[in-house]
């Protein structure tokens, strides 16, 4: 038995010649933990405070994030992981998803779902590009208008769900297809950029709108992207909404037991419309940031983003059944998702590997979260 183990160990170390000390320690710890799993479980049972801590979704999500960060330290791509710019870029490229995930969290807490977030992002993005580039409107005018458009589209989904009793999946699926079509219709399926050909066949270049410069800027001595700030602002707003405002309590109540909430005087229909409108508003925020960074409006922007946003919410530990979870969990979900992708990409892995890992991490995260009742 001992011999077999020794041989196996030797085989492992030889097969991967560059196995570091840290790998060996991790493997040894994993083996010890596996062999002592019953003892660990018993120890946890006798220490109720600790086991209760482990059963909280927040601690579980934090642990998962910690593991991802350890992976990042191990596979640091010659120290790239330790550079702030890596983290800054991760935050930049995931800020759109983070903004969408805020709205998605609120919707999912009411036991709903919103599949239209990617499409609304795309539509609002091209509308904003048109206003800012072609019409050269000021940001002060264009941004509020675009936010209103996003909220209105969300409110339509919400009205279909609350008034006409459509299932959220169906109503927002319809909105997803419709908004994507709308984005292509208003752009005639072309990207809206600064370069155009005038009728007399001379190329013309619109000036870069100042609002784009703002949206693509870095602040705090080039250390943080503007869109990251916007994302953090969205998270803060959602946190206030869910924990400090009355409507937040109503959202949790509807997700927990809609009938009991209705009989307790919660205006369920109005809250649902509000929730989908808010989600649409966040989509508009993401669409504006997206266009600002790309300096053009792409009618196909945000394609499949809804699935990423849902995955982030679920990885964080918010229940798709509604009523359980929170915005803090979603923030961890965004970080887990973002860092996993970033670590794989700085190590030179292509999308094929990244997609497969993403699928795996969703399964693992959901299995972990299932531990609680």
């Amino acid at each position: 038995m001992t011999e077999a183990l020794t041989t196996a160990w030797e085989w492992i170390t030889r097969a991967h010649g560059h196995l570091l000390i840290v790998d060996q320690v991790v493997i040894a710890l994993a083996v010890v933990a596996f062999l002592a799993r019953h003892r660990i479980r018993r120890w946890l049972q006798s220490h109720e405070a600790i086991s209760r801590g482990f059963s909280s979704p927040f601690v579980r999500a934090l642990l998962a994030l910690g593991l991802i960060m350890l992976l990042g330290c191990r596979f640091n791509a010659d120290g790239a992981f330790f550079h702030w710019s890596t983290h800054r870029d991760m935050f930049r490229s995931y800020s759109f998803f983070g903004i969408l995930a805020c709205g998605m969290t609120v919707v999912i807490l009411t036991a709903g779902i919103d599949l239209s977030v990617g499409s609304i992002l795309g539509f609002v993005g091209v509308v904003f590009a048109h206003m800012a580039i072609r019409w050269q409107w000021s940001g002060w005018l264009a941004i509020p208008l675009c936010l209103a458009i996003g909220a209105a589209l969300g409110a339509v989904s919400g009205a279909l769900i609350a008034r006409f009793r459509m299932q959220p999946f169906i109503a927002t699926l319809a909105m997803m297809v419709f908004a994507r079509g709308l984005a292509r219709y208003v752009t005639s399926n072309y990207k809206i950029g600064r370069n155009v050909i005038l009728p007399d066949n001379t190329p013309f270049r619109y000036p870069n709108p100042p609002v784009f410069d703002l949206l693509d800027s870095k602040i705090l001595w080039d250390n943080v992207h503007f869109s990251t700030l916007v994302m953090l602002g969205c998270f803060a707003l959602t946190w206030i909404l869910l924990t400090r405002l009355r409507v937040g309590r109503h959202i949790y109540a509807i997700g927990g037991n809609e009938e009991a909430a209705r009989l307790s005087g919660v205006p369920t229909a109005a809250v649902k419309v509000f929730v989908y409108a808010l989600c649409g508003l966040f989509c508009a925020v993401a669409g504006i940031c997206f266009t600002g960074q790309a300096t053009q409006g792409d009618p196909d922007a945000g394609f499949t983003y809804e699935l990423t946003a849902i995955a982030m919410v679920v990885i964080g530990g918010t229940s798709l059944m509604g009523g359980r979870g929170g915005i803090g969990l979603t923030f961890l979900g965004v970080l887990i998702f973002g860092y996993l992708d970033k670590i794989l990409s700085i190590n030179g892995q292509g999308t094929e590997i990244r997609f497969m890992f993403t699928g795996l991490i969703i399964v693992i995260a959901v299995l972990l979260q299932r531990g609680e009742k």
Partner: protein
Amino acid sequence: MFPPPPLLRMASISKSFGGVPALVDAQLELRAGEVHVLAGENGAGKSTLIKILAGVHTDHTGTIELRGEPVRFLSPQEAFAAGISVIHQELSLVPPMSVVDNVFLGRERSGPGGWMRRAPQRRSCRGLLERLGLVVDLDRPVEEFPISVQQMIEITKALAFDAQIIVMDEPTSALTEPEVERLFAVIDDLRERGCAIVYISHKMDEIFRVADRITVLRDGRHIGTAPAAELPRDRFIHWMVGRELDEQIPHHTPHRGEERLVVEEFTVPDPGGRQRPAVDGVSLHVRAGEILGIAGLQGSGASELLGGLFGAFGRCTRGEVTLLGEPFIPTSPRRSIERGLALLTNDRKTTGLILGMSLTHNTTLASLPRHSPGLWLRHGAERACAARHMETLRIRATDPGMTVSSLSGGNQQKVVLAKWLETQPRVLLLDEPTRGVDVGAKHEIYELMNRWTAEGIAIVLITSELPELIALSDRIIVMHRGVITAEFAHGDVDQGRILHAAMGHREEHP
């Protein structure tokens, strides 16, 4: 001479749910070719006994003998295979599937590779339907037929597998008069074929029309079995009630004030969309400081009456309601709460509480507009409010932040009561406030009700525990199939008269 062994004998059956006994030493004996009525009040143990017979509950003690052979069913499939078929109130048909597919569901006749043999299936299905005198299109989905036809289809399903014992749980609750006649004709036919039928009903006339023998259960015990012809009605009622009044229940002292709620000709359509309204032209009134008791067996419409008054079904109700001297049209729970109404529903887990939320948040849920006017929540005020109610209602919880799902039934119920008290109601509608609550908590709830009426709240109380109803109510109205069949004053009533009225026997209004 020994008589032939009965078709089925259940003896010394006991079963408890979480320490609460539901059946104690119960028995049931069925002979071939008889209609056996199983009677008892709500919660007497009828459905538990049937579920044991049908193999739904398997962890019981006692013996079951089928044709003299001891059997023990470990699943509904085993019971079904042994020829026992239960037709539940909620039909177990698959609504969008066709008649013939439903009849053979789970027992499809198939050849090699699962290839369905449709033709013989249709032939035998048509034969069975003819036997029951039912002419329907075999390929239409069952959901397109009225409930009565669906019930017939369910019976067809039982016959298709040669069921010897057919249990019908309140089969007429959804039927109109002519449909009931058809059902009785079918029952007569089944009886002649040698089937044994267990018939559960709350309707006195029906029971004595259809029964060969009657078994009465009360509080999970077997009280008696007798041929229907030899059982006078008053003895039957006495068997069902039996209990002496519980002296422990504090008698309520009324503090009559002004009229709080006056209801004239109130009608609530059936929430399931059936033709017959759930509440049909009910009139009642209740004064400040008074407890109006409503008695009714299953399907009486009492719960729907309270729900309708509270606006739980929206604007579909008809009738004139006067609340606190002003006209009131029930539209939504939100409006009703604002006007001083509160409704404690009869199922706290599905309609009363949000189980995943904390005690504090559940307590303040219905009164948030008052607690936290404006946008912002006031966490401090909420915590203080929860702490106050924990103190006055004696809610036993370690921490107001714990989720209500981890509380005991009695404490959960007190949280719901606290939620409604916090809305400062003027009229409190209580639907089974002591259901699933231990004895100690029950008494605390009785005392609380007395305290609230002393404070001038008007209470409308539904409870299926008659001693409780009699002791607490200042007046009692009795409902049967959506209409009021009797009204009693405090002290001028006994359980037998209430039960008579609840089973459809009309008494003169005093």
